C-alpha cells in the first residue's frame, strides 16, 4: 500500500478537515527515501500532541515517524504512559495495549498480519515507556525476544514513571530521588540493552534523541533487521524535563550531557552476525542505486 490507495472521495473533499487533506497531498507515505529531513517540507504523520512544551519525547516521536521505512504498512503498539497521549494524533495504524502487554500483543499481531497479508511487507513496532518495557511488561518483553518475534521494540527511557508524578522505575539511575520516590533508588539501572542482546535481539542500540540523523539510522536499521531476521531493541533517552527539574528549553542539552562517552547514555550498539550481513547487503544495494542514478543523470546531461 502507498499513498495511491489513500484518496478522499471527490464529492466530500471540501468538508474534510485540512489536516487530512494535507496528509493526502503532501505526507511521505510510499516515499522510498523518507527521513527526518522531510520534517518541515512535507506533512508530518503527527499533527499535534498533548505532551509538555519542550518534551524530548515529542522530538523522538517526530523523528521516528519521519524515519519509519514503510509507515502505510506499519502498525505501532503502544502502552500506558505519556506515549499513549500522543498515539491518537498519529497518522499510522496503532494499538493501545494494556499496561505491559505490548510485546505480547505485537507478537500476535505480527503473526496475524503475515497470515492475512502473505505477499505484503507489514512492520510492527512497539513503542512504550520504561515502566511498560522494563517493570510491568518485562515478562512479555523478554518472552517475545526469546521467541525471536520479528518486530522492533522501542523503549522511551525517561528513567521514571513520569505520567503519574515521578515514581521509581527499573531504569531509574541509582541514588536518584524523585517526587514520589523520596528515599532514592537503591539499586542500579537495569541493564536492558545487555539483557536484550543475551535474550536474542539482533540489533540493540542505546542512545539519546539529540541527533535526528542518528535516530533515523537506528530506526531504519532496527525495522529492516526485525523484518528480515528477528527482534530488535532501541532504548532512547527521552528525559522528562518536569521530573528532573529542567525548563522547557533544557531537554536537548540534558540529552547532550547524558550521551558523553563517560555518561550513562553513551552510544551503545550491538549487531548480530546475520544482521551485520543484512546491513552490508543493504548498503551495497544503496550504493549501486546511487551509482545508477548518477550515471543516468550524467547521460541526461
Amino acid at each position, binding site marked *: 500500500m502507498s499513498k495511491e490507495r489513500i484518496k*478522499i*472521495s*471527490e464529492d*466530500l473533499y471540501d*468538508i*474534510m*478537515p485540512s489536516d487530512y487533506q494535507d496528509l493526502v497531498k503532501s505526507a511521505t507515505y510510499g516515499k522510498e527515501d523518507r527521513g527526518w529531513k522531510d520534517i518541515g517540507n512535507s506533512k508530518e504523520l503527527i499533527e499535534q500532541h*498533548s505532551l509538555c512544551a519542550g518534551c524530548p519525547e515529542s522530538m523522538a516521536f517526530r523523528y521516528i515517524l519521519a524515519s519509519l521505512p514503510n509507515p502505510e504498512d506499519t502498525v505501532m503498539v503502544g502502552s500506558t504512559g505519556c506515549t499513549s*497521549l500522543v498515539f*491518537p494524533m498519529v497518522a499510522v495504524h496503532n494499538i493501545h495495549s494494556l499496561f505491559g502487554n505490548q510485546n505480547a500483543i505485537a507478537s500476535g499481531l505480527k503473526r496475524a498480519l503475515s497470515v492475512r497479508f502473505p505477499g505484503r511487507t507489514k512492520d510492527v513496532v512497539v513503542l512504550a515507556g520504561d515502566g511498560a518495557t522494563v517493570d510491568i511488561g518485562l515478562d512479555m518483553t523478554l518472552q517475545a525476544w526469546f521467541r525471536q518475534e520479528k518486530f522492533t521494540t522501542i523503549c522511551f527511557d525517561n528513567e521514571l514513571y513520569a505520567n503519574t508524578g515521578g515514581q521509581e522505575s527499573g531504569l531509574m539511575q541509582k541514588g536518584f530521588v524523585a517526587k514520589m520516590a523520596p528515599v532514592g533508588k537503591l539499586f542500579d539501572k537495569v541493564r536492558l540493552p545487555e539483557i536484550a542482546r543475551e535474550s536474542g535481539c539482533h540489533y540493540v542500540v542505546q542512545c539519546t534523541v539529540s541527533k535526528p540523523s542518528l535516530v533515523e539510522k537506528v530506526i531504519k536499521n532496527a525495522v529492516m533487521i526485525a523484518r528480515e531476521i528477528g527482534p530488535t531493541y532501541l532504548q532512547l533517552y527521552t528525559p522528562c524535563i518536569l521530573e528532573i527539574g529542567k525548563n522547557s528549553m533544557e531537554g536537548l542539552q540534558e540529552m547532550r550531557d547524558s550521551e558523553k562517552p563517560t555518561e550513562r547514555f553513551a552510544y551503545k550498539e550491538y549487531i548480530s552476525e546475520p544482521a551485520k550481513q543484512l546491513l552490508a547487503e543493504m548498503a551495497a544495494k544503496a550504493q549501486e542505486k546511487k551509482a545508477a542514478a548518477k550515471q543516468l543523470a550524467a547521460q541526461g546531461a
Partner: protein
Amino acid sequence: MIQYRVLPGPEHFLPPSAASMGICLPNPGEGHINGVIVPEEKAYEEAAKQFLMAKVPTLFPGPLVLWAWNEKAAKKATAIRHLYNTLKECVQPGQTPMLIPMPDYRPKYPKINPEVEINPNHPNLTIWHNKIDCCMFIGVHCHQANLSLKIIRGGTACYTMAMCAQAGHEDAMLSFRDASVEKIMKLAEWVKKLKGTVQPQLTSAKSRASN
C-alpha cells in the same frame, strides 16, 4: 414489563445498549423507528419528516464513504452530497442543514474541532457545539456507530438515524439497513416529496439540543 423504546435523550450516563433491552434489528426490506420494526417505506417517510422538522438537520458521513476505497464508496459520497443539497433546497428559513465528516475513529485527545468534524468517542461535543437536533450516520463502521449513537442518546436530545450498509442499528432512533446509493437517493426524493408539508420545530429544537 414496560417495553423499552429508543427515544431522544438525554437518557442518562451510560445508557444500556438497545439490543440488551430487547430491541431487534430489521429484516431486509424493513427499518426500525424507536425500536419498532416498520416497512422500509415508512422509515423513509419518517426520516424525511425528522430532517424537515429539525433546526439543524445534519449528515455525518464516515470513513467508509469519505475515503474513496473503491468506486462504490465514491458513488455513495456523490449520493450523500445530493442528499445534503436536497436538504438545503427543501428546508425553510431558520433551518441550517450541515454536513460534518467523521474522517476516522482516533480518540482525538485532548480536543477536536467540533465545527469541522465529529469523533465517535465524544460525538456529543459536535452535537452540542452546533446545536444539532437531528442527525444521520452514513458510512460509519458498525461498532463505532453503535458506540457513538449510545453516547449521543445518553447525553443529548438529538434524534439519531443510521443509514447502515449492514444489518442496521438498534441504538439509533431510526435505522435503515443494506444502505446503497439507490437508498440514499430515495431518501432525498422523500425529502423533496415532503417539502413544505412539515412544520419545523425551530423553538423547541434549540432547547432540546442544548440539554
